[in-house]
């Protein structure tokens, strides 16, 4: 089949391209905001205000409209599975989550679902993480925990090395846009827990990852299917030790990372932070390295187009 199905489509694309080139040459359109090839691979925004740095990081990546079309169903996966307050670093900063939700709402999302599979008592998690409280004013936004099996359905994992199918939250499978909003934190089993490890909050049977399979390979198997369109990583502070639940050493970082590449985002956060009192290379984190080796994203940060902003 030819690239274009019909002449009309060919002409339209041609016209759009010409107009874009004209626009760029006339300075009307900022290239980094219009042409996919010109978007940075990853953005890091530094600053004190979590909401502002969240917005700036996403804007620098091309803006939320790149990911959320009007009427789209969005699923935001934060960390809110521990019954702890925002200061503990075990859950995503509610200000970051709220800003992402707001941007999605402004972009015209028809439904914004914020979900995590909680580990502690559900009502305590919802209350102490403060995410529901902060997000309740955002239009079309629903914050829920998920435990019950009926909310999940089987999905084939064709590229799985450990398993060939898994149960995934239906809401995530049905969403037009999947946005991971993890907090950078240490993890007693996987080294660090960021966007990839965080996707375990959208699957039903996590225990077998720990007990039956190799955890690191399992995480990578999972993200072959459950791949976020956008990662917005909360680095306002990181849980440097004692993760995933804490208590542990919480280090303020005052930054947010945004990327379309989950591997790059996790690698960048790993490289920026200090973990267990040490600096750690991204390739030292087994699941990040395997994910890069299996072609799911880039770990070679030095070769990436990274845009740094300070506000």
């Amino acid at each position: 089949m030819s690239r274009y199905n019909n002449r009309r489509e060919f002409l339209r694309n041609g016209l759009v391209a010409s107009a874009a080139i004209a626009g760029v040459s006339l300075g009307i359109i900022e290239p980094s905001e219009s042409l996919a090839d010109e978007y940075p691979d990853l953005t890091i925004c530094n600053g004190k205000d979590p909401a502002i740095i969240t917005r700036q990081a996403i804007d620098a990546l091309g803006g939320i409209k790149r990911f959320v079309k009007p009427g789209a169903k969005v699923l935001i996966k934060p960390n809110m599975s521990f019954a702890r307050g925002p200061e503990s670093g075990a859950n995503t900063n509610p200000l970051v989550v709220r800003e992402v939700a707001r941007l999605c709402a402004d972009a015209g999302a028809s439904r914004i679902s914020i979900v995590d599979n909680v580990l502690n008592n559900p009502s305590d998690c919802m209350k102490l993480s403060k995410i529901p409280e902060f997000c309740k004013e955002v239009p079309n936004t629903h914050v829920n925990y998920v435990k019950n099996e009926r909310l999940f359905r089987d999905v084939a994992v064709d590229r799985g090395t450990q398993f060939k199918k898994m149960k995934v939250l239906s809401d995530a499978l049905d969403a037009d846009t999947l946005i991971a909003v993890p907090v950078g934190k240490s993890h007693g089993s996987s080294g660090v827990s960021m966007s990839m490890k965080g996707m375990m909050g959208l699957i039903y049977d996590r225990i077998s990852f720990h007990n039956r399979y190799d955890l690191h390979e399992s995480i990578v198997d999972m993200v072959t299917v459950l791949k976020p369109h956008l990662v917005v990583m909360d680095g306002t502070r990181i849980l440097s030790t004692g993760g995933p639940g804490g208590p542990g050493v919480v280090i303020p970082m005052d930054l947010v990372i945004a990327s379309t590449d989950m591997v790059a985002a996790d690698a960048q956060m790993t490289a920026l932070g200090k973990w267990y009192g040490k600096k750690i290379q991204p390739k030292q984190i087994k699941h990040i390295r395997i994910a890069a080796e299996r072609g799911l994203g880039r770990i070679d940060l030095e070769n990436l187009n990274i845009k740094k902003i300070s506000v």
Partner: protein
Amino acid sequence: MIRLQRLIQLISLAVFLFFIIWAAYPETLDLPLDTFLKLDPLIAGVTLITSRHVQVGFLLSLLVLLSALVVGRGFCGYVCPMGTTIDGIQGAIYPKSRLRSPRSGYDSRSQYRSIKYYILLITLAAAVGGVSLAFLVAPISLVTRFWGQVAYPIFLSIADVGLDLASPLYKFFPDLAYVQISRRVSNANYFIAGFIFFVSALAIISPRFWCSFLCPAGAMLAILSRRPLIRRSVNSSCTQCGLCVRNCPTTAIGEDPHRTSFQECLVCRRCKEVCPESAISFIPGRDSTATVSTTPNITRRGILLSAFSGLTLAALTRTGWNQPRLLGQERAVTPADLIRPPGAMPEPEFLKLCVRCGLCMKACATNTLQPVWLKAGLEGLFSPTLVPRLAACAVNCAVCGSVCPTGAIRKLPVEEKIQAKIGTAWIDRQNCLVWNQDKKCLVCGEVCPYHAISFQPAQGRKNGVPVVHANRCAGCGWCENKCPVEGAAAVRVSVAGEVRLESGSYIAKAKEYGLEFKVADKNFDKLAPDTFESSGIEEDSTSENGVPTSNKDKLPPGVLDE
């Protein structure tokens, strides 16, 4: 149209159920959830006698007793949720025609009339002997147990199945999908359901058989209902058609419809409603009718035999070996896993006070509190125990003591409840993955909210082995619950070291005993942890939370060398 009596019954039942449903963690409203239990004169009487102690709350039941002087057994007819429940069940299983009284009325059932008085006497005599049988016969205890332990879990699972079936609707109501119900289980639900069904099914002999012939609380009211102020009277327009006799739900009317047994009359006024001549009224003071045999065949022999039976029951209980007050022994013969809820009175007092209403088990945040069968002896039937394998005791929850109507479990503030040691974990080395198979497993230490388990080097083991620090272990059971060993956990809680105070501060006692209960951190303050992500069996883990671990400085397994 719904009859006034039915309406009041339903309202009363609704309030009763509301209180039962609200007996839960977290405690959102400060409601008197045990009000109905406090209304039960039998629970009040028995508890008063066994504990030799007046509890102010139980003075409510005095009001119920005094109400008998005015409205006879109106409480039974209008308020008692046991009566309403029996009405409901008997109405559901029998057609209306089977629920009618025989034409000969009161006299046809004379052989049963005295049973409830004898049951009352047996119960009170046993109480004098120091043994509470309230749990077997007190109506509000029985019905609370029924709704809390049988009906509520069934309701939850039906609702859950309903939500499953409603899945086609999720498309239209996405948030419906997120309505999630955690189901509950009970260890004695078959028996409790069977018992209530049985006493309701006795309606085949006579409607509301339990209320008329068995209920000892009803008997207490009946004794005071010989001539209540408001009572049934029949005037001269009565044609003796017998309709009232047939329709009386408690066979309280004699073959001669002028005659009423006020001890049996629930003042439901059905007789007045069905009377074609409007000959019946319930008016204070008026008395154109005689009462029927006011002392229903209670013999001196019967009284003596009942009292003797009650005392004998108490004596048998107190000379059995499986009882908490073995004379001349320093400790009772107690099963090692009979773990009582935190704040439970010392066992003898506990059993005297506990009426097995099951409110603590209904309210329990994690469902770990379960009724025991014979583990605590016959006397301890259906008393609450922790089953850590099922669930653990939520650290910052003290709801069991808060809802207990009799103080069998003391009402403790959370800070004090945390200091109330209920047992001590012990490692079963034969089962332990570390001890027995030298696998890396740290689950028990990771989940322990009190940091009471550490991992220490042991000869011949590559991996650190779990060690319980008894003075830090509160016995909450998180370790036993999460132990990955199938079947019997390799770390189990026993009653060893439990602290049970009749009065006084658990905090002070913990200090005196050198116990150090430190929950993980201040963020746990409002936490009822029910699930923990653990690093599993094969993996190593670093714990930074102050527990001395053998591998503290090592990086976790997900981190590779450079």
